[in-house]
């Protein structure tokens, strides 16, 4: 029980994505990742864009849809212990502003990547599979669903 708290929010994880400046930080982080990958020598621009897309989607999948629970103790005796961060956001209310933002960003990145890779076949397949892996868990129908029991406990 946190005694000296400045808020009566039971699970602060639900409000992290609505805090001031986090959307901007997120976009800047993607930009920074892209610039760093661009500076690697002997790597062509399409490969860099595909790498950006893949790394971004992999990071998003791990942090939003794999890691469960909260990194701190909450006063509700672990109600959210089996929920991923995406499921915890805004206490499970769907279609909030942050959820829409986090759904649109991979799509925008996908469009940019497809453009810069000139719709090449292999790049297209990789990017689409990666996009699907990050969009499907965000569907409201898959809230709390664990396919084949993966990541259940």
């Amino acid at each position, binding site marked *: 029980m946190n005694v*000296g708290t*400045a808020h009566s929010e039971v699970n602060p994880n639900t409000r992290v994505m*609505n*805090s*001031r*400046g986090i959307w901007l*930080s997120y976009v800047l982080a993607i930009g920074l990742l892209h610039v760093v990958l661009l500076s690697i020598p002997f790597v062509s621009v399409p490969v860099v864009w595909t790498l950006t897309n893949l790394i971004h989607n992999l990071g998003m999948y791990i942090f939003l849809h794999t890691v469960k629970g909260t990194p701190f103790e909450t006063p509700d005796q*672990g109600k959210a*212990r089996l929920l991923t961060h995406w499921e915890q956001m805004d206490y499970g209310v769907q279609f909030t502003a942050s959820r829409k933002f986090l759904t649109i960003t991979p799509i925008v990145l996908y469009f940019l990547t497809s453009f810069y890779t000139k719709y090449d076949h292999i790049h297209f397949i990789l990017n689409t599979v990666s996009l699907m892996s990050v969009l499907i868990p965000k569907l409201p129908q898959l809230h709390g669903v664990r396919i084949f029991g993966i990541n259940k406990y």
Partner: protein
Amino acid sequence: MRPAPGGCCCRRPPRPNGCVANGEVRNGYVKSSAAAGQIHHVTQNGGLYKRPFIEAFEETPMLVAVLTYVGYGVLTLFGYLRDFLRHWRIEKCHHATEREEQKDFVSLYQDFENFYTRNLYMRIRDNWNRPICSVPGARVDIMERQSQDYNWSFKYTGNVIKGVINMGSYNYLGFARNTGACQEAAAKVLEDYGVGVCSTRQEIGNLDKHEELEKLVARFLGVEAAMAYGMGFATNSMNIPALVGKGCLILSDELNHASLVLGARLSGATIRVFKHNNMQSLEKLLKDAIVYGQPRTRRPWKKILILVEGIYSMEGSIVRLPEVIALKKKYKAYLYLDEAHSIGALGPTGRGVVDYFGLDPEDVDVMMGTFTKSFGASGGYIGGRKELVRYLRTHSHSAVYAASLSPPVAEQIVTSMKCIMGQDGTTLGKECVQQLAENTRYFRRRLKEMGFIIYGNEDSPVVPLMLYMPAKIGAFGREMLKRNVGVVVVGFPATPIIESRARFCLSAAHTKEILDTALKEIDEVGDLLQLKYSRHRLVPLLDRPFDETTYEETED
């Protein structure tokens, strides 16, 4: 919709001088643009507020917010790395793990829930739990400790850092002393009664000291009767369940203390949270509660209880009591006021937030407070009508099961309260109250002039200074201790993720010289750590940086 910055948040067109039209109650804000382009939000609601209510919460600068997330991101990545190393035994594991034989059982320790503690808190842990070895007055002695393994364990060097300026103790009126009238009276009572009571109030632990104390508290507050308990936290958490139950509605402020939240949850009543100090939010909830009743059955609520605090200790804001009382009378709800930090600290005679606004104590149904802060003792009290206190004597868990106040502690409270009321024949109490008010105004003004972001009301003796970045939390605490000033710093998850702060608690025991020294050191550390974020762009009070929509846990 959020009003545009610079827009007026009134529901009816304001008059230029802020008066109410034909004396009716109004819930609007009048913006008067002061000199130098600063936007001061002074609420003057004609008949409701007798003095200007100036509260400011400056918005986080965007660059600072982005850099704070960068800091947390770096620490999180390194936390994962260290956890990986600990898991594969490349590094020694200091935290609690199960024994080898129990590895296949259901896990005893939630490793991930300790992630923050292990990887962020441990790195700056030396700023908390500092052992003090003297009375926590204006200056305090702290035992020096060192750590060889990055704060996992501490060793005492044997030195004592003497005379550290104490900006962290809740010693508002300076009664935390080991000399003087209070200490002599308490020592005498100690000789007569001993320390332990060895019983509960209901059994055989009801001393004449307790009766004397309760009569005095009732007279101090201006209520019919009062009851005193041994522990402030337990007063809230054990008495709210005695007052409300299933079928009742609790309207609780967003930033209420954990004791109020715990008491509300233990009671089993429905809890609805209104935005901090936001009367529009409270009124909307009251209206909805009365119009729609209970969730499924639509029956009327048995009781509606509004839980607010006098001073919110982490924000430094003062409750808008006149408006709350007006709303409570209009919608016929009950009011529970927790004056833990405001009793003794506010008001011209030190009688708390009711005195500060010049209101009638009989309007507040349950007045709760603690003796820990302004009276230099421990324990809590509840004051109200005779029937309420009589009911609580038999139905409150604290009264029935908890041991009662220790006699020397009760005597300390009695003596300090008499001093504040002026009944001991001196003007010491009045001077302390005035000194605290002067210290508050001076300290806040100087900090604002230096350019720090300070939250809260102009008259609140609790001063949160914003730090924002995680590394600055540790650095601020350590640098201030190096310069002989002891402060309390708070970070995530106790505060919202970007709003970590240092909290100063002013005291009447602080002389102007002590405050000047402390301010000089704060100035220096502020330059060193680049903490002077303020751009003097005060956000209108309704535009506080909280979300427009807050989602709550649905009740199962």
